[in-house]
């Protein structure tokens, strides 16, 4: 299925990263390292209230401070349009205008209301203290269910409700499901379980906070925006709309970006504010987010209330899944906020067969920071619900959770390209083989025996084992599918390969990596395909002034969309070089074999090397009639399907009954992301993803108090785990090449974060199941675990 034409030299090997030399020596080019002549510093005045009407704003004292250049409120910094929201999921969606500086009232703690501009970072910070705002605090609501109660404070009064609209699969999905779930829940012969889970709100915590530098050329109306973003291309378009500047006059540069995880997949107020300020003041401006500011100003993720019901036969055959979600939008719809839960819509029956499937979700406004894509975006939520519910069903049926999973797996011989109950088509998988490998590594029988033994001996430290046999859809995304989902943009990507006269090659990609190592993987692909040395290839990205228009990096699309675009550009290079080689060697193109960079006339030693052909294309002294000079090719690739990675993860924990403390003893991940271009990079993605999933399960939770204050507002009380909190991992794989693309690849960037939370929580509940514990809200802090034990035994 993988159709790489010749034996791979670089693909499949763990090449060390091209990205590293500058990063290990402190020469990375992050946005905060940018200083321009005459540059001013920007500070944002933010609401200290979760909900408050703005009376007047007085900036006169600020302007008296030496070194302050300007201060503006929402009334006097004009924009052509509100910030762009790109995913109006259906006609029901409520999309209130989101102005970069709010004008009438603040709707969450951190809502920008004014801006100061000063000659230095320190003066800008001092100036923030001098802005006087006449606040009229209003009652606030941050809880999802409370926001839907009659009489709740209304975040956007024009709607008269916090209900921001629903998306119902039966009505809104372009793909028919196998059948409705409802009839199965009326069947008295079936066993049912109904679970409710609350997924805590999370803060992404890319290690680099956000930042923007704008360099204006007002005379020409041209602006360079250097910003810590995952999406330079999309941001250029949204900034053009919000600021009323033509795209051709905007250059957006993503320099080295210190992690994203979705948090830099956004059109933020600060980007537009800085662009407007540079335009107004005709001087370069810089804004660098502080961490505590990041906690309120940068998007949050996940928060939702899930109801999931399963219906199964007494023998354990899953018949139907029914899901109803209520998802927190926070105070505004940002770039793709209302569509995030939909990214999981087809995944709530997991990798299992069933006959009936109903899914719907309702979006809810609250007085909290807006939510949007956080690593996995919709798919961790789906995987959590079905993998927790499968364990609940196993307990109900008194069946081993592994056995229940095996019984319901989609059979391996259904693949490739099997249409699952929710209506989409999965490319390839071997769920049985993947789980088998996990169990083999684990020694499942041995772990269960040890678990029984500890219980019988009355040990205080109990053992638990939990599984997550996960799937996801990524590689966003087929443009026609996005159209059917009411997403405004496409999901294709672009790549250019350009031979330099001396035989080195520039690769320009439309994806915008920010830590993934895509430049390394892409160089491996091109080196093999064109018979070049890995070191001859430079991969450039993240600058709209330089690379072809692409759709950036998110949704595990770098390799499965951007990498495939690159491979197809390589095919065009080979085709053109073949024509030139035939011309030079005076033979038919069909007489040429291409191997290791050489076109050889079959059965002879007459040969032309691709580097020489590149040089000859450049001189253009002797080209066939009509051939364009230069050996360069661009391809825009629209994937025909998502990619569908999957895997089996297992977590083994020790739970201290007396303290509620959970320690992960082993963590095993067996993942199938199709062909691996660079196993070292794949494993790195799994490591980091699993760590974030463990964090989600055990440590992290953004908490608002009743007034809407973020009580976990700094890194000291929002628990990003450090080295001692995360275990070493046991990483394995099972490879089923994707038939969707010629590289056979699938995404892997989000896998760990999708897989890990239910594996961890299932293991904690498993440890305590004999005590009667059935659920523990995440994160499973020692207090929550201890209380669950006490309540179960009461």
């Amino acid at each position, binding site marked *: 299925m993988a159709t790489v034409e010749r034996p791979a030299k670089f693909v499949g090997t763990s090449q060390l990263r091209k990205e590293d030399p500058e*990063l290990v020596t402190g020469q990375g080019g992050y946005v905060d390292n940018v200083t321009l002549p005459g540059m001013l510093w920007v500070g944002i005045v933010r609401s200290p209230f979760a909900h408050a009407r703005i009376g007047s704003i007085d900036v006169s004292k600020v302007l008296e401070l030496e070194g302050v250049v300007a201060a503006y409120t929402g009334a006097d910094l004009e924009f052509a349009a509100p910030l762009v929201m790109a995913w109006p999921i259906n006609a029901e969606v409520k999309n209130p205008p989101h102005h970069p500086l709010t004008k009438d009232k603040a709707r969450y703690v951190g809502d920008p209301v004014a801006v100061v501009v000063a000659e230095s970072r320190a003066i800008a910070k001092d100036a923030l203290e001098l802005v006087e705002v006449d606040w009229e605090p209003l009652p606030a609501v941050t809880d999802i269910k409370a926001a839907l109660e009659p009489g709740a404070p209304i975040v956007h009064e024009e709607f008269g409700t916090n209900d921001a609209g629903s998306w119902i699969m039966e009505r809104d999905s372009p793909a028919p499901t196998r059948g409705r779930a409802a009839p199965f829940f009326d069947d008295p012969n079936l066993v049912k379980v109904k679970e409710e889970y609350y997924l805590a709100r999370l803060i992404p915590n890319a*290690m680099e906070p956000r930042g923007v530098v704008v360099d204006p050329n007002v005379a020409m109306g041209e602006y360079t925006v250097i910003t810590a973003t995952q999406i330079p291309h999309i941001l250029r378009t949204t900034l053009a709309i919000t600021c009323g500047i033509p795209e051709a006059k905007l250059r957006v540069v993503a320099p080295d970006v210190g992690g*994203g995880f979705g948090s830099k997949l956004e059109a933020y107020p600060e980007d537009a504010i800085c662009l407007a300020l540079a335009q107004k003041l005709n001087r370069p401006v810089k804004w660098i987010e502080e961490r505590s500011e990041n906690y309120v100003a940068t998007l949050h993720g996940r928060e939702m209330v899930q109801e999931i019901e399963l219906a199964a036969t007494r023998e354990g055959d899953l018949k139907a899944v029914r899901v109803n979600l209520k998802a927190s939008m926070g105070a505004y719809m940002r770039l793709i906020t209302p569509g995030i839960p939909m990214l999981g819509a087809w995944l709530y029956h997991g990798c299992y067969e069933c006959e009936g499937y109903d899914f719907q979700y309702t979006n809810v406004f609250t007085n909290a920071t807006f939510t949007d894509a956080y690593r996995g975006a919709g798919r961790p939520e789906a995987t959590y619900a079905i993998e927790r519910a499968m364990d609940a069903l196993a307990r109900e049926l008194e069946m081993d959770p592994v056995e229940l999973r095996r019984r319901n797996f989609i059979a391996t011989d259904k693949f490739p390209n099997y249409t699952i109950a929710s209506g989409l088509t999965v490319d390839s998988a071997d769920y049985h083989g993947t789980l088998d490998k996990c169990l083999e590594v684990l020694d499942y029988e041995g772990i269960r025996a040890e678990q029984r033994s500890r219980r019988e001996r009355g040990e205080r430290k109990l053992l638990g084992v939990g599984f997550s046999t996960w799937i996801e859809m990524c590689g966003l995304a087929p443009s026609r599918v996005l159209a059917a989902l009411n997403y405004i943009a496409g999901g294709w990507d672009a790549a250019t390969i350009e031979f330099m006269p001396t035989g080195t090659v520039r690769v320009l990609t439309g994806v915008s990596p920010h830590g993934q190592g895509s430049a390394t993987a892409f160089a491996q692909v091109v080196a093999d395909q064109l018979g070049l040395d890995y070191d001859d290839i430079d991969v450039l990205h993240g600058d709209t002034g330089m690379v072809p228009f692409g759709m950036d990096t998110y949704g595990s699309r770098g390799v499965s969309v951007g990498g495939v675009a690159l491979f197809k550009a390589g095919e065009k290079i080979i085709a053109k070089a073949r024509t030139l080689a035939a011309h030079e060697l005076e033979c038919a193109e069909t007489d040429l074999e291409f191997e290791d960079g050489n076109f050889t006339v079959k059965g002879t030693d007459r040969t032309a090397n691709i580097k020489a052909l590149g040089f000859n294309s450049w001189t253009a002294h002797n080209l066939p009639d009509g051939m364009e000079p230069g050996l360069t090719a661009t391809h825009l690739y629209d994937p025909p399907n998502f990619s569908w990675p999957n895997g089996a993860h297992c977590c083994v924990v020790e739970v201290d009954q007396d303290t509620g403390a959970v320690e992960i003893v082993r963590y095993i991940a067996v993942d199938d992301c199709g062909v691996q271009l660079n196993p070292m990079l794949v494993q790195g993605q799994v490591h980091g993803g699993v760590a974030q999933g463990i964090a989600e399960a055990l440590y992290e939770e953004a908490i608002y108090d009743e007034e809407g204050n973020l009580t976990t507002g700094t890194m000291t009380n929002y628990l*990003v785990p450090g080295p001692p909190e995360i275990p070493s991992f046991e990483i394995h794989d099972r490879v089923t090449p994707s038939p969707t693309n010629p590289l056979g690849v699938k995404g892997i960037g989000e896998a760990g974060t999708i897989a890990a939370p239910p594996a961890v929580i299932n293991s904690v509940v498993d440890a305590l199941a004999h005590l009667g514990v059935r659920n523990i809200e995440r994160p499973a802090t020692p207090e929550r675990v201890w209380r669950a034990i006490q309540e179960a035994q009461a």
Partner: protein
Amino acid sequence: MRRIAITVNGAREELEVEPRQLLVYALREQLGLTGTNIGCDTSSCGACTVHLDGQSVKSCTVLAVQADGCEVTTIEGLATDGALHPMQQAFRDNHALQCGYCTPGMIMAATSFLEEHPNPSEDEIRHGLEGNLCRCTGYHNIVKAVQAVAGAGV
């Protein structure tokens, strides 16, 4: 303003600083040593770790005036004669970095840790680096990199 003298990566530097100026800003904005990153405002993340008179400190937690008369080593001062420091090489060899933002601080913390604990266990490495956060790697390969350097007896 106060006048201070610091020896940074072997070179003596004299600068005027506000008394409230943090060492990290003196390094980044006055001396142009931008390899030391800032990841938080609560001394939680360790991205700004440097060596102050041979010991690792979070440079966001030291006032520039406190460093007066001291020797500071930053990530830029670690490689010698164009050769990576063994810890820098080990980070690359073991894929112990992705976005690279925590990396300078992590490397500075790790080198300082190994000087004090030449033969650490995995658990000691994890606790030794607990003041440094990484969001990309899950620490797995960072631990391996430190073990590799310790094992090589460097």
